């Protein structure tokens, strides 16, 4: 065997390994995930991308913070220790690195990223025919409405409503850029951008009728809430009035059925929840994995409800010593699963009552309140309406839906708790709008990277 024969034998082997056919082995594709291109390959896939935004949107954080930060919830004695949930936030001695604040911020902006990603690629979607073209426009409108809605939720939690301290709020993000570090935004500009999305969405319409997604009615409902917070009462009335004729208030026992997800009488928009959702409105008040109750209704609200009797009280009245939070009793099949009712017509009644009051249309204002009370089976003689009455009505009607803290914050009221509702006798009873802990800070992790966000 001479050398040349050896080389002639060996070299092809080595060349084989360097050849392109071997290198084709390296062209692999993931088999359990989808690639970017497939999302835009049809309008149907694009719609599933839109559903992806809903699937991971956790508005429960708004409900939690809006409720427990004010006076409608009481900390359960079990809600302590390493598995404690929002207890520091509730007792007003949280720090800026609080878990709940971080998760709310993260989840909202992750959802906004999904929306922006889809919007920036909407032109790539393969479509044919006018029906598909229109469907695409509807989906784009739905995404814009969602974007405005989610930003507004962030603004409710972290934004500054106090005119004296500077009037800044969270950034309004419309671009996909993972390296962006947007600074704090003046509130007026925030409202302008959010409004732009609402107007564009309504212009093309979402063509959606499913109660689990943003229909045009849902956008109107959201818009009326949006304008109420800005004190633009005329616009609020314009958006809310048509809905009041279209949707009926739930009467009598239909109210309880509403909360059990049996009927949809009042509901304009309800985010669906299923077994795969880790967080649902029910899990905010009770940790099912360990069997511990996290929050009870405060004695303050129970007293109010007891005084008025009627359907609202029926939700909370119970044989047990300490009444659980009755708005999320579970549905027919599971006691720990409910959809999140984002917009109900009752809220619009209350928005109209407030708007009419500030527009000096007092009679229409008390008419709204009276209609609501009638539906709830509450007997009360009509008196001259003042803003405090509306606030109390919102307190008892919209409890545990994430409104109380935000209502008091936007009207610059003190947060007042009864002594029996305090977790510890040494805890504070009051939080004034001038107290540093009154306004929730931007999460520490964010301001570390992005110091321009602090104000």
């Amino acid at each position, binding site marked *: 065997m001479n050398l040349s024969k*050896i080389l002639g034998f060996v070299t092809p082997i080595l060349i084989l390994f360097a050849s392109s056919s071997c290198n084709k082995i390296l062209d692999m594709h993931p088999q359990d995930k*989808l690639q970017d291109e497939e999302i835009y390959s049809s309008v149907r896939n694009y719609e599933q991308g839109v559903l992806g935004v809903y699937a991971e949107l956790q508005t429960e954080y708004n409900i939690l913070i809006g409720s427990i930060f004010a006076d409608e919830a009481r900390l359960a004695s079990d809600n302590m220790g*390493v598995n*404690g949930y929002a207890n520091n936030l509730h007792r007003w001695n949280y720090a800026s690195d609080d878990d709940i604040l971080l998760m709310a911020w993260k989840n909202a902006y992750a959802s906004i990223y*999904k929306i922006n990603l889809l919007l920036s690629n909407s032109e790539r979607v393969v479509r044919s025919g006018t029906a598909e073209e229109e469907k695409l426009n509807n989906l784009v409108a739905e995404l814009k409405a969602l974007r405005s809605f989610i930003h507004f939720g962030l603004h409710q939690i972290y934004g500054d409503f106090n005119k004296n301290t500077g009037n800044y709020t969270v950034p309004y993000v419309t671009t996909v850029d993972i390296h962006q570090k947007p600074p704090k935004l003046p509130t007026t500009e925030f409202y302008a951008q959010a409004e732009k999305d609402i107007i564009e969405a309504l212009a093309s319409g979402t063509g959606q009728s499913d109660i689990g997604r943003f229909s045009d009615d849902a956008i109107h409902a959201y818009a009326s809430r949006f304008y109420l917070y800005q004190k633009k009462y005329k616009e609020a009335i314009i958006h809310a009035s048509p809905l009041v004729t279209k949707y009926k208030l739930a009467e009598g026992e239909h109210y309880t059925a509403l909360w059990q997800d049996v009927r949809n009488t009042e509901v304009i928009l309800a985010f669906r929840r299923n077994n795969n959702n880790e967080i649902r409105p029910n899990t905010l008040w009770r940790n099912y994995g360990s069997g511990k109750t996290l929050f009870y209704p405060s004695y303050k609200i129970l007293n109010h409800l007891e005084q008025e009797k009627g359907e609202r009280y029926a939700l909370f009245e119970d044989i047990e010593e300490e009444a659980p939070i009755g708005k999320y009793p579970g549905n027919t099949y599971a006691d720990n699963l409910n959809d999140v009712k984002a917009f109900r017509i009752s809220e619009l009644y209350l928005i109209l009552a407030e708007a009419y009051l500030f527009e000096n249309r007092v009679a229409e204002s008390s008419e709204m309140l009276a209609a609501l009370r009638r539906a709830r089976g509450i007997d009360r003689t009509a008196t001259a309406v003042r803003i405090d009455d509306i606030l109390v009505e919102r307190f008892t009607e919209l409890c545990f839906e994430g409104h109380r803290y935000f209502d008091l914050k936007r009207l610059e009221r003190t947060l007042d708790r009864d002594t029996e509702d305090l977790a510890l006798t040494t805890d504070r009873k009051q939080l004034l709008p001038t107290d540093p802990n009154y306004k929730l800070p931007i999460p520490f992790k964010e301001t570390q990277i992005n110091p321009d966000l602090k104000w």
Partner: protein
Amino acid sequence: MNFRSLLTISLLFLSGIPLRTIGQEKNITVTVKDEKTNELIRGATLTDATHSQSYISDQSGRIYLPASSSMSRIVVSMLGYQTEQLVLKEGKSEWTISLLSQENDLSEVVVTGYTKQSRAHTTGAVSSLPAEGIARMPVASFDQSLQGQIPGLYVASPSGQPGAPGRITLRGIGSIQDENSAPLYILDGVPISAGSFSTLNPQSFENITVLKDAASTAQYGSRGANGVIVITSKKGNSWENGTPRISYTGQFGYASVNNSKWDMMNTKERLLFEERLQDPNFPGWAHSRNNPNKLVNGALMPKTEKDFLEGDEILANLRGIDNDWRKLLLRNGTTNAHDVSYSLGKENTQIFSSLSYFNQQGVLYNSGLERINLTNNIAHQSGRLSLALNVNLATTNSKISESDFDVSETNPVASLYFALPYENPYDKDGNLTPGPNRFGTNALSMYQDVDRRERQYKSVVTGNFAYTLTEHLKLTSTSGVDFQQINGKHIIKPDTYFGSLVEQGGQGSYTSNTNNYFSIVSNIGFNYSRRWDNHFIEAIGLGEINKQKISSQGFTGYGLVPGLSQTPGGITPGTAENNLIPQLSGGISENALVSQIGLLRYSNGNRFTVTGSLRRDGSSRVPESNRYKYFYAGGASWNLGEEEFVKALPIISMWRLRASYGLTGNASGFASDFGYRRLYAVSHYAGQNAFVPVSAGNPNYNWEMNRVTDIGTEIGFLNNRITAEVDFYNRVTSNLFVDRTLSMTSGFESVPDNMGKIRNRGIEFGLSGDLIRKDDFFIRLGINGSYNRNRILSLGDEDEIVTEDYSIHRVGQPLGHFYMVRWAGVDPQTGAPQYLDADGEITSTFDPDNAVLVKGSFDPPLKGGFTARVGYKGLQVSALFTYIKGMYRLNTGELYRTSADANYRIYNQSRDMLDFWQQPGDQSGNPSPQYERFMTDRELQSADYIKLRNLQINYSIPMSNKLSKYCREISVFGQGQNLWTWTKWKGQDPEDDNNWYQYEYPLPRTYTLGLHVKF
């Protein structure tokens, strides 16, 4: 030539008879063997003393001398052996000569994966450990037994769960994602997955070689950055008279937890604590005579005399219960191991087989590991072909405790600290009474009602082939398969407390999942070696393919039927009405690596050696723009012991210098197989499928690159009675995957980007020597250690990155330096906790913005071990101590047991808490209970330790005539593992692989007794 002659010649060729011997008559064949091991020696030199011609023995140890030669006296020599002479007599054509190996470390053969050469010719920093020393240690995952034995190798054992793997780093942590800094493991030429050592039987290993620098690891190219650990299995060899060796080793023992730092309150102390707290939710105050009020519906009302009497009775009952939860939740776990092996070495065939059984119960109930392992190594040489087939099969059955590494109330180790001493787990009928906040009872109930099991099947099959084409050239090929299947089950029984807490249906749950891991490697190439005069050259060229495939599938079903909880048949199918819809999961992924390797070595006698390696890797895990990379290294070594001026110094018996430099890559730095792409996963909404983005994609994804410089020296004194080894190294890892923190407004918290640079620079040393070396008495001591300085050189555009757990990566500092708010004691006037703000001023407000760099990092700069062996006649005692210095850890357990604040007072506290601040003027270390407790550097503790890791006492029973009829050797031995720990750490064990204490399964003390018999 006609066809028939062609056929004859081909057949002869294939049958391996060298062509040149056809037609010749009766060659003289001399076979050269190793006297001790009977192995055939290749490369031995036979010199004809009269005609000064020399011949070299081939692969099968044979030298062919022409029959016509008139040689009578021959000299046979081989590096590392004593030279022998032989007189050839007429008439005999077959001769065998056995060489006795010399006591010279430089002759030791070093296996570095693709190459095999003597230590004298090795240019890389390579440490070798004969497996015998660690094979018998009673740890289920043998990587844990490597600690303190090899300079530069640090094994952190995160958990005492039987079978839990350690985390091994070589020469510091070279990656910011420190879980991706594991070395590459090779078993008989085939890479095996890390973390599966609980399935391997160390008693079937011959040798473990650790490759540390570039000259030795660059042959592994993109996977060599973190070092390579090469394991070689045993080969068959018989006793001198040819009979096979049969041996048996058995061990029995038990393990228990080291609780010397336990200081939790007992019932009396706890009730006193509650009384001082004045919290009406706790019995110590609620029923105290000193408390005039009782709590009714949230309001305080005065007590009546009846209330006081009731209170007295309740307190008396509570005082009667004083549980030591250590006795209830922990146990002594037993260990039981048996190993039988058969070893046969004939001329052409060597067989090694072993069967072993290992069973270790964990110190927490319902946890443990059972393993059966079968090893079969066959090697065969016939003519030009030599092949070796190694088969390793194992099955393990383990029970795993809940929530390991989790600070949660379902973790039994946490329950140990949380449970109150007056909590009575049983009712009057003797049934367990679990419920919310009954931590101890819940842990007991979990032991019996929740099962977490894993059954693993693993097989590693490797084949090595070599075909000698000519005297200098041979073809080689290695192929191997590593297959692993893990079946996990998690069963929560229905009709139990935990069963009722299952969200879907409250009737327990049955989870089953299967993970398959399949890896195949195959290479083929040539090995050319030539020796002339004093020169020796070896060149190796290979082409290699590596492919890995991972798939998993699983389901969780609900609504178990009581009594049928052990099978999926007991699951109630989900319907629209019953909310018992099962959950399904699955995944599949694969990756491939295609490489070309070239290695070159030149040696001048024993004096100089120069090596070079070049490897081109292409990986499917990297986007096309960066897919192919070249990795290279060069090394040189100089054996000063051959120089005249050193030979003149009798005190120095060996002295080698070596240096190397090279470039390697870290392929395990990739978080996933397709992380560089933008991908979507499937989710659901309103009964429809939805797509959610899961990775942002990064088209510039690249390998992490490692440049290592190494200079080392090995010295032996006094005839190698004392040997020392010192290495300086400088390892710079660039293109590091940094989880670049982003503003969350971008949609992501962080994105991995290749932009960091870390330097690990240090010195490794090992010193060992015989203090006394007499006929039947010796004392041998050794010490090894390494000092490593880790510095972040660059983080791309950032100056610092804050990580989740109170630590920061800052340029100029070591990786993972702790970054926390500083504690400044308790204000004696108000009892408020005090902190230092960023400027060093005292403040009472806790603001995470005031965090500064504190104390140190979690990777210890100084680590190593010392060994002592003493032998007298048949008795041998060996001790292994391991030590680390400079490691800090966050003791979260300490926070929860020194917190009287509202959040944590439901947990049992440490005795120190009896004197928390109560009134103005109190000097106390613990603040008033009305203030929140936050994590500060008060909880940051030093985790330095010196451990007596292993103590073995071995006695060889002297062989009397009667005994030697039955067997050749009997010895009995006793072992203690993890016997003593000297440390300041306040907890069960300071060892861990990360910077938090998370109530990990404690590392126990194990005592065993064993018997070893050789037939």
